[in-house]
């Protein structure tokens, strides 16, 4: 579904990505991990064609993004870290607009709208103005716009950032339900979330992929007698950090990551 070959991205003299290569197969849910500023958002923006890479090649479902970006965008659903919402619109108007610009067939439009409203549990707020909704609802509206055109690939940048535990659970469940329908690339700081949802982990550090492994094998201890590793321990190990409560950025509570591409 995704093939990347030696992607680099420079912002002036700053090298944000340094030769990223990986493949993601159809139907996989891949957790994308890294510290703030490691290059996750930049890579996601390149995959969604929002930013061009400085060099390298990206194929999405066999299509080169540099040659046919509009076809690629048709296959991608994307939720940036800050949900891209027109807050003065109602949920329904916003989703209708998303359906219009994402080429949802006119005959299927009503069906698709009903489907995403049901799937994202937005039916009861569909006529409410987005600005009046809670953060959890806003996040679900963001996911609804990302899946309204039935994309083959769903890219989510910290979809549960800043949500309370119940909202977090609802959004996580929503993402989990996508696995039968599409490939999901999910970036998050909540490591337990990856443990629950993902099949595979990509870890990025200073613009390089340092881990690309199925979750099962990543968490398998060296010794059969030992208990399974936790993703947190693996993360700490790869970032040469001690597991301790004094490292808040790497615990279950996320901190917000800068959205500025120039520093990502």
């Amino acid at each position, binding site marked *: 579904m995704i093939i990347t070959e030696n992607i680099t991205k420079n912002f002036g003299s700053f090298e944000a990505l340094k030769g990223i290569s990986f493949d993601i197969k159809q139907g996989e849910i891949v957790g994308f991990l890294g510290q703030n500023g490691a290059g996750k958002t930049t890579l996601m923006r390149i995959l969604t064609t*929002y930013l061009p890479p400085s060099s390298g090649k990206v194929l999405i479902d066999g299509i080169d993004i540099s040659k046919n970006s509009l076809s690629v965008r048709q296959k991608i659903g994307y939720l940036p870290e800050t949900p*891209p919402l027109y807050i*003065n619109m109602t949920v329904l108007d916003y989703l209708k607009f998303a359906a219009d*610009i994402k080429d949802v067939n006119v005959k299927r439009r009503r069906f698709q709208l009903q489907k995403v409203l049901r799937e994202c549990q937005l039916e009861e707020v569909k006529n409410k103005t987005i600005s009046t909704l809670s953060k959890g609802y806003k996040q679900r509206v963001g996911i609804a716009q990302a899946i309204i055109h039935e994309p083959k690939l769903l890219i989510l940048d910290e979809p549960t950032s800043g949500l309370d535990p119940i909202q977090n659970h609802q959004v996580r469940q929503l993402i989990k339900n996508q696995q039968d329908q599409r490939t999901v690339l999910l970036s998050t700081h909540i490591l337990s979330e990856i443990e629950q949802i993902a099949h595979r982990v990509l870890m990025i550090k200073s613009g390089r992929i340092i881990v690309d492994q199925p979750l099962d094998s990543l968490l398998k201890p060296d010794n059969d007698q030992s208990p399974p590793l936790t993703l947190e321990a693996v993360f700490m190990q790869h970032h040469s950090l001690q597991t301790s409560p004094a490292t808040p950025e790497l615990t279950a509570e996320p901190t917000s990551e800068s959205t500025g591409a120039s520093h990502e």
Partner: protein
Amino acid sequence: MSKIVAIAKKELKTYFKSPIAYIMLIVPIGLFNLIFYMIIEQNREVSLREVFRVMEFMFIFLIPILTMGLLAEEKSTGTMEFLMTAPLSNTTIVLGKYLGILIFFSILISLTLVYYGIAEYFGSPDRLTTLSGYVGIWLEGAFFIAVGLMTSSWTRNQIVAAIAAYVILFGLFFSTALTQYFSGTSKLLIEQLGTQGHLEHFAVGIITVADVTYYLSGILLCLILTRLSIENRLWQ
């Protein structure tokens, strides 16, 4: 084409959901009414020529306020990422935005048609002159909107976008005042660049290919530069 219309519809819908749309309709129309009354009272002339001049001057102030958020707001709120990762070409985004605000401007202009009705009721205004005046003011507004859209694509800050539009529009409006300091080709060039002379022809009932070309090429140039600005992410 359907996506251009979808973006234009979204623009209009969100615009009319905020008070600014109503303020931008009520305030100019109120001022135009007052000025129309004063001109008629003072000149005792059933012509809209002076009204068109006042409209032109007021649009320099009003249009940057209308256009400043068109793209700058999308960037500051993050919805630009939504548009630019949807299967939309940059040209579609630019034309959709432009069409939306052009329709709003056309509504504003159409509300002033009542002046023609009043002039017709009390006298015998020259219909063709009035019509050409309206064509001229509409083209000029369309050109100003294209300038505002372009400056809105340069930055994520709406105030900066408005100030940049003011600088360009004031430059175009007052450029004729500078002609006395120039001669020959440069004088002719500055004269042609200014908006006042072109609208004046329309206001007196003369529609020339040169004047229409001036506005249309200005609009096209601004739209192309807007597209390039989006393509090259100039605001980043």
